Structure formats: C-alpha cells, structure tokens
C-alpha cells in the first residue's frame, strides 16, 4: 500500500503543472527591410502591421474565452541568410516568442525555417514559394505562397486560351529564361511541363538560366533574338526585370506575348521603363486587389486603403493573410501552445482572401497552400486587369502584342 502511495505521489510530482494562462502572446518575425529585397520587405511589413493592428483593435486573441494581447517583434534580416537564421534563433531562444511569421524570398525562408523546425515552433510564411522548401517534410513549416510551378502553368493557361482562338501560332515557339534559383527552376518546370503536355502546340526554343542580380543580359537577349520565338517568358525579381527589360527594349525585341513571371505590373517598373515599354506585359501573381469586390477580401482592401492611402499589392495581401492564418489557428486551438497551434495549422481549413477563397495546408504538398494564380496584363491606360482564370477575369487580355505590329 505504501509503495502504491509512493508511486502515486511521484507520478503527481512529476506531472507537468498546467500551463498558466498567457498574459501576452508574442509573435516573432524577420523581414528584409534593408538589402536587395528591402522594397518587398517593406511591403510585407505593412501587411503584418495591419493584421496586428486589427487584432489589437479587437482586444487581442480570443484564447479559451479570454482576450489576450498579441504583439509582433519584427527585426531586419538585411536580405541575408546568415542574419535571417541568427535572428530567428534569437527570437526563439532569447525573446521566447510563441510562433514565427516568415520572412520574404524563398532562399531566406528555406534557411530560416530549418531553425524553427529544430526548435519545434510554428513557422507560417507567405514569402517562400519554391516547392523544394516544402519537400523536406517539415512539421512546423506552413506556406501560403502557392508553388511557383503553378505560376508558369497559369501563364500558359492564358496563352493556351489565346492559341485556341487562333490569336497565336501553332506551334508557338517559346523563349524561356529563368533566374538560377529555386524560384526560377520551379517556374521553368511549370512552363515546360505544360508544353510537354500539349505536344505539337508549343516548342521551347530557348531554355536558359541567368544569374540573380546580373547586370548585363545582352548576350542572353541576343540568343533570344536569334531564336525567332513568338513568346518570351522570363522569371525575374524586380531589379532584374527592370534591367533586363531595358536591354530588351533597346535591343529592338518584341514578342507576341511577353512575361517576367510575377513581375510586370509594378508602378516602380513603369516609372523606370516608361509606361509605353511595359504595355501588354503579362504577369501572374498570388493575389490581385481586383479580387476584393466582396467579403473578407473587400474588407482587407478597404482597411489597407484607409491605413496606407493606396491599394494593396499581392505582397501586403500575402503578409496580412499569413498573420491572419496564425491568429485563426491560435484562436481555434484556444491557446498559444506551440504543439497545439501546429496541429491546428496542419488541419486548417478556412475562408481566405486568397484567389480561391479558401486556405489550407495540404500535407501531401508539404503543408504548402495550393490555389490558382491570377494572371494580369498591363494595358496602355496604365491598368492591369485580371485576364485569367476566366472565373475571376474582368478583361479578355490582348494577344498578339499590338506594339510588335506597330514596330514592324
């Protein structure tokens, strides 16, 4: 009997005491606020801050029927992997944050998420789209950016529709150039897989990668010119888009369809290149503010416009939705406990501002969200209406590029 009492006493003594209710939930994040990705990092900061402000205005997170204030600890990872990793470690082990929101750019997310996984802390990001990040089968990593492969597929979807209307030749010759990164490789995979599936309709005549942040593209563009392609598809970050397209224009190139992947509609690019030179550039993005005609999306667009006095772009939308997904998971879990929040995120399924209106993190895809990209095309009046998919399109798009005929 004595032994039994002793065992029971030891069992109760060793049992972890119930966790005291949290008085504050702290979420850590780093963003590239300086360095090569500083501009985009600033956009993500706006999205995060809006989400936190809205949640704080509600009194915080509703955890187990009690409102708990939620704060963001945001640091600058200077667009470098080493700093992103060091700061994540510091946020987890020194600042003792309850969860991490991801940084921007695939290569930073890839490095930083490994630290979150080691420390078993939920890492929700809207800045890493390369599918290889999610092929590592991490348990604590959740991504809101649909794979870049789908970006290539979405562009090809619109092109295919134009070809079926006899607006583009069959077979159409494609010049495909992509940055030599995980992002670029996924883009290439999406385009080439689509072309392979539609035998006889497409012929990839140039398939070349280029160095990220390269300065001179004249030799590469010379190869593109020599290929006599109908379609020019590139995957580039914003600085490379500006530099490459400047050289594209001065080299006298013009294609029936031209795209720089996710880049194309940025105001900064139009300023740097001239509105005329970005006409009819096609781009596919994770989100477009024109989707905001009702519900959650409209509420986000209105709130963003009220706060920042301008329309949001996909960067801010992804960041906002990333923070919102984490808040929702914590509220559904009723706690900020890392394991419970992770479980809730893994089974997450909720309304979203993202294109298909629903968000989930399918385990078959390594917990990376899957949804259709929105294809938009720059018009001479400076607008970029949605041209694909048909379900959300508000303009048919123009092909072939009328400027080429005018130039000839």
């Amino acid at each position, binding site marked *: 009997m004595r032994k039994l009492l002793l065992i029971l006493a030891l069992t109760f003594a060793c049992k972890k005491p119930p966790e005291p209710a949290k008085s504050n939930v702290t979420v850590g994040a780093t963003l590239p606020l300086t360095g090569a990705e500083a501009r985009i990092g*600033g956009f993500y900061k706006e999205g995060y801050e809006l989400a936190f402000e809205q949640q704080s205005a509600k009194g915080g997170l509703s955890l187990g029927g009690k409102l708990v204030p939620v704060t963001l600890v945001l640091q600058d990872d200077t667009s470098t992997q080493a700093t992103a990793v060091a700061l994540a470690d510091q946020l987890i082990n020194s600042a003792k944050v309850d969860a991490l929101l991801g940084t921007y750019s695939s290569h930073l997310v890839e490095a930083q998420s490994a630290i979150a996984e080691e420390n078993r802390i939920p890492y929700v990001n809207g800045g890493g789209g390369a599918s290889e990040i999610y092929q590592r089968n991490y348990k604590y990593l959740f991504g809101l950016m649909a794979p870049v492969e789908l970006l290539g597929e979405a562009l090809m979807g619109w092109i295919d529709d134009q070809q079926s209307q006899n607006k583009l030749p069959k077979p159409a010759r494609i010049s495909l150039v992509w940055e030599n990164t995980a992002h670029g490789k996924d883009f290439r995979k999406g385009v080439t897989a689509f072309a392979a599936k539609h035998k006889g309709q497409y012929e990839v005549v140039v398939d070349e990668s280029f*160095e990220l942040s390269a300065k001179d593209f004249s030799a590469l563009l010379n190869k593109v010119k020599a290929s006599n392609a109908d379609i020019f598809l590139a995957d580039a970050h914003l600085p490379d888009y500006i*530099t490459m397209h400047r*050289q594209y224009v001065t080299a006298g190139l013009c294609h029936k369809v031209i795209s720089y992947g996710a880049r194309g509609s940025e105001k900064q690019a139009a300023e*740097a*290149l001239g509105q005329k030179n970005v006409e009819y550039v096609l781009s596919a993005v994770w989100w477009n503010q024109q989707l905001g005609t009702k519900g959650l999306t409209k509420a986000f667009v209105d709130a963003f416009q009220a706060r920042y006095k301008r329309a949001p772009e996909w960067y801010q939308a992804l960041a906002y939705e990333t923070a919102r997904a984490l808040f929702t998971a914590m509220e559904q879990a009723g706690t900020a406990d890392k394991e419970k929040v992770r479980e809730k995120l893994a089974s997450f399924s909720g309304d979203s501002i993202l294109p298909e209106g629903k968000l989930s993190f399918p385990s078959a895809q390594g917990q990376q969200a899957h949804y259709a990209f929105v294809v938009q095309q720059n018009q001479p009046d400076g607008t970029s209406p949605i041209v694909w998919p048909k379900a959300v399109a508000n303009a048919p798009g123009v092909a072939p590029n009328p400027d080429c005929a005018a130039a000839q």
Partner: protein
Amino acid sequence: MRFVELLVAAVLLAGLYAMMAYGLGLIYGVLRIVNLAHGGMIMAGAYLGLALHDRLGMDPLLSLPLIAVVSWSFGWLLYRFVVRHLPRGATGGAQSLLLLFGVWLVMRNAVYLIFTGNDQAIRTAWSTHAWKLAGVSLPVNRVIVFGLAMLALGGLHFLLTRTYVGKAIRAVAQNPDSCTRAGIDVEKVYALTFGLGSALAGVAGLLGATIFSFNPSFGSVELLKSFVVVVMGGLGSVAGTASAALVLALVEVFAILVLPSYLTGAVGFVLLVLVLVLRPGGLFGQKVLG
C-alpha cells in the same frame, strides 16, 4: 549577323568595364593601395546622379561634371585626412584594405539611411532608345558610356604624357623618394591622384545607373569586375586597362555560345586566375602609367 551583334554588345560592355576600372588602376599604380572604397564611390556616383535627376530634374549627362568635382573633392579629402596617415609598404597593405573597406561600409549605410534600400533607376529620354545601324541595335545609353570611356582614355593618356602634372604623377609612381629630392610635392600628387581615381569611379557609377537598376549594394560586383580588369591589364597601365576591359567583355559575351548564361559571369574570374598563373604582370606586361 549574330556575330556582329555579339561583337557590338561586347565592345559597348567593354566601355563600361573600362570606365569602372580606370580609377582603381590609377590609384594602385601611383599609391600602391587597393582602394576598396572604389565600390562605394561607384555607388555614391549613382545616388548623387539620382538625387540630381529626381530632385532638380538634371539630366545625368549634365550632372557629369558636377559629380566628377564632388567625387574628386571627396577623394582628395579622404586622402588628406585618412589615407595619408596609413603606413606604406608591405606592412600598410592590410591596414589600408581594412580602412578603405570600412569607408565603403560607412558610405553604404549612409545611403541606406538617406535613400532606403529600395531599388532605384534613373530614367531619361534616352534610357530605352536605340539607334539602328545596318540592322544592329545600338542602345543610346551604352554608346554614350562607350564614348565617354574612350574620352577618358584619351584624356588620361594626354594628362599623363603631355602635362607637367601627369609627368609628376608618373615620376611619383616610379620613385617617390627621388621626386621629393627633385622638389615634387609627393603628398600633393598622391592627393590629386586619389581624387582623380575617385572622380572616375563616381562618373562610372553615374553612367552605370543610367543602364542598371541599383540599390546600396551597387558597386560590389563592379569592384570585382574592375579588379579583374586592372590585374589583367597590368597594374598601372591605362591603355592595358582599356584593352583588358575589351578582352573581359568579349570573353563574357561570346561565352554564351558555349556555356549556359548563368556561368558567363564566372568566365572573367577563370580568366583572372589564368592570367595570374601564366602572365602575372598582366596580359600586356606591367607598366607604370604608360
């Protein structure tokens, strides 16, 4: 036709490489200092041009003289107040490298504070214009950069061979001790040369900014390319620098015919290693500002 287009692209690219490398080569040739702040001067020239263009509406070509003067003054002051206090010779090498690298970091962070880290671009009426010559496109901004690079080559050659100041620079480069005995103010020549090298870097930065988008990291890749050009050209040789810029541009541009595009940037560094192993004095032999 494709060969001609590639050749034209290489020649125009060489103009930019030469423009970026003259200043680095000149300072090394005379002071025997590897000026790591050269990258910072290139970046500063770009941002100064941006400020003049965006705030005063000044065309980059019109702001060239102003940027040259400002960069020269900065270089002169940098020498008078910082670089001249460094020990010379083998022992001073590491100190000058560290100090000038520090200057570059300070410049970069100052630009972050003033302009943020956002990518910038200077757009002029001729940024996206090209002339057509026998079916070959000649981008106006690159032709201008090439023309200015040729002008700088001619100007430097004239300065160094036909003027008293130039002869003094060459004499100091060969033997500063003898020059002191002959009554040449060596410190003044050093300050003048450091200023001249800085002015050339500032102008190169401005010209680069009319072609590329840039941020505070601008100047890093340019410094590396300049280093390759200067070493290949033979340290201290202005004409060698121009010729090496052409060789580097030709190799990089024509490499696309046999290599994937993303590897063409590395070809220059392979060339650098080959030159250092096979012709340590540079492709055209070591000269002192001849």
